[in-house]
């Protein structure tokens, strides 16, 4: 369980740019200095080489961008839905609403499932624990892998970790530990494979990796030119990377250890609200204000599918895959959830029921259900199954036991 004491993180004026930011303690010519992570990166790029100036660099940059496009186009031999022509199409989705969780005093902004148990944490209330945040809007929340703690944050620019306890009388707010500190709102957070590290994304345009115990900044990720709205970690088997999406319309893939931006994708026409890895880790999906969801394959290094319809004009706020990756659930600002066939690119279902924007959609870790949270103050948990086209009977969910 979390220790109650914590070491203050170094947050203050950078010795180089003088802005107040999380600081890295480094040595320059044997002198200890405090530089913000951006200045540390900039230092590596100083020192002009022969004949280099702004104009020559700009030309080189344009040339490289063109080359990147050409290289990607060379391998674009087929569309995903063409390759998937022989796959049996899905029939009708039958869903059953299992739980409708009311009780939020406000809009539900985010949810997370607990890994092993069937618990949900959502923006200001956990089904078995209630934690009151001192700030108005909690925008991000996450369950620790052990299930013993939750992390949340929002307009307070911080990510705090609350240890969970079965004692209902315990004041959990008192045990809270501030772990991350950004210079703008916290948009998303996620524990890495252990309870010991947290990855955060922020309106300040950066993502950062923090040590929970000490609150220290371990690595920071610079590359977005506007607010970062969402992040997702690669499934553990595929290594230490994560993807982030932001208001600069870019989705970036990062190496967690080096802080390097490995790949970048810019095909959306508006803010990317949500990013989610495909279960195998070879691709990821995005949901955007441009009313489309897109699939990007990491090994082909390009966008391979667009999930859109002329009739869908509202932004997608949240996406998640079913555990086989065949279905993509996407929540939209027109109060609906569209379910897409990932391989064929078609919409297979549209789900109604919410009375306001759907802000978050999450499939449970074992894949048996999905939960949608909305600005209508509810969380709805649904299960479902697809009838294959050859199935001619209508399915009903009745039991034939008699009740006492």
């Amino acid at each position, binding site marked *: 369980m979390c220790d109650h004491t914590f070491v203050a993180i170094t947050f203050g004026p950078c010795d180089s740019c003088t802005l107040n930011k999380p600081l890295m303690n480094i040595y320059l010519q044997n002198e200890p200095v405090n530089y913000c992570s951006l200045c540390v990166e*900039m230092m590596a*790029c*100083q020192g002009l080489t022969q004949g*280099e100036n*702004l104009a020559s*660099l*700009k030309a080189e*940059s344009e040339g*490289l*961008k063109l*080359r*990147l496009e050409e*290289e*990607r186009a060379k*391998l*674009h*031999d*087929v*569309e*995903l839905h063409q*390759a*998937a022509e022989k*796959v049996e199409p*899905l029939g009708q989705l039958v869903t059953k609403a*299992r739980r409708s969780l009311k009780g939020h005093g406000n809009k539900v902004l985010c949810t997370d499932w607990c890994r092993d148990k069937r618990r949900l944490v959502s923006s200001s209330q956990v089904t078995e624990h209630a934690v009151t945040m001192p700030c108005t809007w909690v925008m991000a929340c996450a369950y620790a892998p052990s299930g013993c703690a939750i992390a949340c944050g929002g307009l307070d620019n911080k990510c705090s970790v609350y240890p969970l306890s079965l004692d209902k009388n315990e004041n959990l707010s008192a045990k809270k530990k501030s772990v991350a500190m950004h210079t703008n709102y916290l948009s998303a957070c996620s524990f890495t494979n252990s309870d010991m590290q947290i990855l955060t994304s922020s309106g300040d345009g950066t993502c950062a990796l923090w040590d929970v115990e000490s609150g220290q900044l371990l690595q920071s990720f610079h*590359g977005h030119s506007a607010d970062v709205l969402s992040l997702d970690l690669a499934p553990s088997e595929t290594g230490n990377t994560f993807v982030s999406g932001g208001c600069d319309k870019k989705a970036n893939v990062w190496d967690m250890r080096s802080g390097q*931006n*490995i*790949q*970048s994708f810019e095909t959306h026409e508006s803010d990317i609200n949500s990013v989610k890895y*495909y279960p*195998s880790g*070879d*691709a990821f999906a995005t949901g955007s204000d441009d009313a489309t969801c897109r699939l990007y*394959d990491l*090994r*082909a*290094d*390009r966008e*391979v599918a667009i999930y859109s319809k002329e009739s869908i004009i509202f932004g997608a706020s949240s996406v998640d895959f*079913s*555990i*086989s*990756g*065949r*279905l993509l659930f996407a929540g939209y600002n027109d109060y609906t959830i569209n379910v897409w066939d990932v*391989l064929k690119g078609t919409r297979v279902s549209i789900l109604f029921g919410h009375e306001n924007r759907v802000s978050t959609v999450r499939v449970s870790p*074992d*894949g*048996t*259900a999905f939960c949608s949270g909305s600005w209508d103050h509810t969380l709805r*948990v649904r*299960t*479902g*199954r*697809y009838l294959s086209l050859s199935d001619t009977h209508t399915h009903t969910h009745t*039991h034939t*036991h*008699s*009740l006492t």
Partner: protein
Amino acid sequence: MSSNSNLTNMRRSVEQLKLEASVERIKVSQAAAELQQYCLQNGNKDALLVGVPAGSNPFREPRSCVLV
């Protein structure tokens, strides 16, 4: 000062683009085939695709039964 940081920014941008251009890529047809294979291999474990047997659905309402 500002022109210096512009220069540094451009240099960072060029280094970044060089890195991205050098990524090893595979053909879309191969990538698509592997995505498809993953879906088909795991499709029968996907409860939202094939459903779960009625008795084992963890979300169904608990009911008490009596033998009549």
